[in-house]
Structure formats: structure tokens, C-alpha cells
């Protein structure tokens, strides 16, 4: 920061001399300049496969060729290593809540989402990262990290090539996943368990 004063003329209009033609009229102080840009969005090959699989009530993930981590949605790349990941994996439509948020303010353009609603990071069985989903079918205050959930699908006749086929995720009633192994801790817990197995010579129980 410097101490150089900003000239008064530039900052507040004092000193700007106007011609007679606009001297006595209400000055314009703001102007609407909307921007609109249109794109023809074509998803990648991996995303096309993922979306079409939804039409068959299947959820696909990508397996990393480096360490087997499974990402969902599949983007054709393992982002931790910057390598191509083209192996697709079918995932169960059941998992647990990795983290969640209760939203009380409505989103513009989403009148279909009555507030308050719960958005959550859904960690599917078999996947090593979560993806965004809506949790419903229970009281919002009952949602917790580790809560087991399953997909509630649209009726068969209403399925399209879209993740919107899953209306929301509802609790299954199964025992919770322990917090130490839930959400983003799951990968670390899995790696630690694998290391233990190796240390034990691979004869720990599954």
C-alpha cells in the first residue's frame, strides 16, 4: 500500500465537467450488459458410457492402473498420477455417507428441491472416492457420516441416460461404517489394512 492519494476527480466525479446538454439531467450510474455464451457440450467417451449405464441402472467407475483405486464418475484419467485409466468397473448402488450438508436456502432455478435438504458425498461400495447425491427417506437430523445408503431409482419406464435416474439415496438400516473408515478416510484405511496383510504374509482374514 502506498500513501499516494487518489485524485478526487477520478474517484468521485468531483471535477468532471459536463457539457450543458447533460448538465441538468439525472446521470446514468449503471448499465445492464448481460453476457450469454452457448456451447454444444459433448461428454467424453468415458462419460458417455457412464451416462448410458445409468439407463440400465448401472453405475460405472474407473479403476486406476497404478494402484487399483476406483473413481466415480469415470473421467478416463487417474488424477493423482496423471495417467490414462480406461478400465471400467460396475459398482453396487449401495454405499455410505462420507460427508454431508443440510441446505436451508433454496437454489435459484431448483424449485424441485424443497428446503431443508441434505446433499451428501456418497461413497459406493467398491469406489474409493465419493460423488454428490441427495439423501432422503429419513429425518435430516438422522443423517450422519458412515450411514449406509442405497439408491432410490426412478421407475423403469422413466429411465434416461442420466444420473438423474437416481432420485435420492435412502438409509438401508445396516450398521454404520465406523467414522475412522468412512468417506475420505476409507482409502487410507484400505491401504493400511493391505499393508497389514502384507506384513502378516497375507494370511489375515478377509
Amino acid at each position: 500500500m502506498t500513501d499516494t492519494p487518489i485524485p478526487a476527480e477520478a474517484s468521485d466525479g468531483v471535477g468532471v465537467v459536463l457539457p450543458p446538454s447533460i448538465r441538468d439531467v439525472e446521470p446514468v450510474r449503471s448499465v445492464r450488459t448481460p453476457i450469454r455464451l452457448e456451447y454444444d457440450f459433448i461428454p467424453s467417451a468415458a462419460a458417455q458410457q457412464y451416462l448410458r449405464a445409468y439407463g440400465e441402472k448401472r453405475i460405472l467407475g474407473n479403476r486406476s492402473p497404478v494402484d487399483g483405486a476406483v473413481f466415480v464418475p469415470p473421467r478416463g484419467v487417474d488424477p493423482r498420477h496423471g495417467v490414462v485409466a480406461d478400465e471400467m468397473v460396475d459398482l453396487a448402488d449401495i454405499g455410505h455417507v462420507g460427508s454431508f450438508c443440510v441446505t436451508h436456502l433454496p437454489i435459484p432455478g431448483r424449485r424441485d428441491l424443497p428446503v431443508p435438504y441434505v446433499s451428501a458425498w456418497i461413497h459406493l461400495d467398491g469406489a474409493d472416492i465419493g460423488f454428490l447425491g441427495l439423501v432422503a427417506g429419513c429425518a435430516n437430523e438422522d443423517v450422519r457420516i458412515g450411514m449406509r445408503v442405497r439408491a432410490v431409482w426412478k421407475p423403469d419406464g422413466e429411465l434416461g441416460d442420466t444420473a438423474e435416474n437416481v432420485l435420492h439415496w435412502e438409509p438401508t438400516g445396516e450398521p454404520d461404517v465406523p467414522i475412522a473408515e468412512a468417506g475420505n478416510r476409507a482409502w487410507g484405511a484400505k491401504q493400511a489394512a493391505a499393508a497389514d496383510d502384507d506384513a502378516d504374509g497375507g494370511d489375515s482374514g478377509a
Partner: protein
Amino acid sequence: MTTLTVVTAVREVAVVSSAVHQVEALTFTTDVQLMVPLINEARGAVGLTQADIGFTCSGSSDFLAGQGFSFVQTLDAVGAFPPISESHVEMDGAFALYEAWVKLQVGEVDTALVYSYGKSSPGSRRDVLAVQLDPYTVAPLWPDAHAVAALQTRLLLESGAVSSEGLAEIAVRSQHHAVGNPNALRASAEATVAGVMAEPVVADPLRPSDIAAEADGGCVVVLAAGDRARSLSDRPAWIRGIDHRIDAHALGVRDLTRAPSAALAAARAGAGDDRLDIVELHGPTTSQEHILASELGLDADTLMNPSGGALAADTLMAAGLVRIAEAARRISSGDADRALAHATSGPCLQQNLVCVMEGE
């Protein structure tokens, strides 16, 4: 006359490897998928992994992706784990390279990964570029990039600086040089001035061959400093000077037939200190390539745009970095000893970066 002093860089920095990929349109390939093989190729060519890279800097535009912070997702292609030191410019990758060069000057790191990409095919690039104009008095009229360049071209023609045939010669030279360049979209040994002059005017007075062939693609450049560069490359392309200057933004306040910022950047980068074997100019139209060549005062021995230049394939956000990569590659191969690469940004050559490189 003012004497311009060229400041010698504290650290020698060189381009040690590069990778380029440009096509007419990428449809089922995301920005990330495009960059994975390119980044791996450029790093791999000098035996580096991401863990060996001191600083990463990229250039791209969210307005091409139609998504805010799109460049963050593109870091998936880098393999940015463990977390990396990284920056981004919402500009051509040539300017990201400048930032990386500055970072190397500071002395904390010895290597840098620079990349840029542009997938403009899903949108209308000439209209997206209208948004860079004055938001109050110009952009609401949506003057597209071809129209704005056409206004500049007409001024140039009517000033007598060049004729339509002269511009067609530039288009033809680009198409001839581009033959054999796997990253060129418009290449033809059979192109003629008569053929170009017979094309219908599409943005009066510009013809299709006067306007760069739009490409989707990406470019990667690896920089290294001092002895690190010597250990990675038998013949690094040493950056002897690099500079970036900016002219006034408003179209009516400057002489559009000139690009003083290009001349000043070239002088500051020491372009005229010795002969130039090749220049790679980022001129998105023949008229702009002409203006740049005039401002740089190039002599007849200098080979102009051996790659075909931006006219042969123009990847928005990467065309400038591609010029640096193409020039550096020819130094490292021994085809050239001293080269100038140029990048532009803003309407009608408003901003210009010049990079002068030498083999040892």
C-alpha cells in the same frame, strides 16, 4: 534516441523439451485426456516425473470450456499429488511460460512445467472473443474477432503498407511451410496467390485463408535452469531474452496498422542483438502477421514461420506457446542457432510477448 538496455538474466533458463498436438476438433476427448499424453511425453522426453518439477504453470480460458475454474480440473492431467507448486494465467500459455521463467529467476526451483490448451470447437470462438472488448461501449455490440480483425486489415490495406496480393502471399507461404507439420490443419504445397485471391471474402476484406485455421489442441514446454538444463538436453534452447508489453485497449485510440508493444518487447528481449535464423510469429490473420514482421524489422534471410505459423493451426490459448515450442525444437535439433518466438493477446495485437532463444 533512447538507448534501450537489455538486462542480462541472472539465471540461464532453457527450453529442454516440448510436445504439441493440434487437430480440427476434439469431440470425445476432454481437456484432461488431451493433456495426459502430452504432459507425459514432454516430461518423459527428459526423464522427469512430476516429483522432479519445481513449478507448474498453465494457460487456458474458462470461456472455451464454458466452466469456471476449468483449469483446476485440468490439473488431473499433471498428477498433482503430492500437492505441487502451481499457477495459472487466463491467457495463452506463452504468458504462463513467462511466469515460469520469472519463477526460475528467483532461484528456488530449477525446473518448470508449462502447458496450455484450448478446445474452442464446442462454442463460437469468434463470438467468445467479443467479450474481451470494452464492456460498456463495445462488447454489447458483439463485434466478433473476425470483424475486428477486418477493421484493422482494411486500415492496413488503405494505408498502402501492403496489398491484398501481399496478404495472400503470406497465406500461401504459411500453407507451403506447414506441409509436413503433423500439427498443421491448413497445409498445401499447391496453394497459390491466385487461388487465395479467388476465395470469397468472408469478413470484408478478409478471405478464409487470411484467417487462422481454428484448432483444438494443447502444448507443453519444460524449462530448466543452468546446469540442470545441460544435464537434461544435449542442446537446450536458451532463453536469452523475454519481454511482454501492452498497448492501449480501446480500438480507436491507437494506430491499428502498428503494434508498438511488439517492437518494444522485441527490443527489450534483445531480438536485434544478432541475426535471427527463424521467427515464429503468432499472427491470427495475414494482416497481423504482416504488421508483426514490419514491427520486428526482419531481414530477408530470416525464415518466417517454418511451422506454418498460427495461420496453419491456431489453438486459442496455446498458439503462442506453440510458437515457442516450434522455435525451441528447431534450435535443439540444430536446424537453427537463434530464433525469435512471439505471442499475442487482446484485440488487434494489443499485447505482445517476444522470446529470443539460442543454442549454445
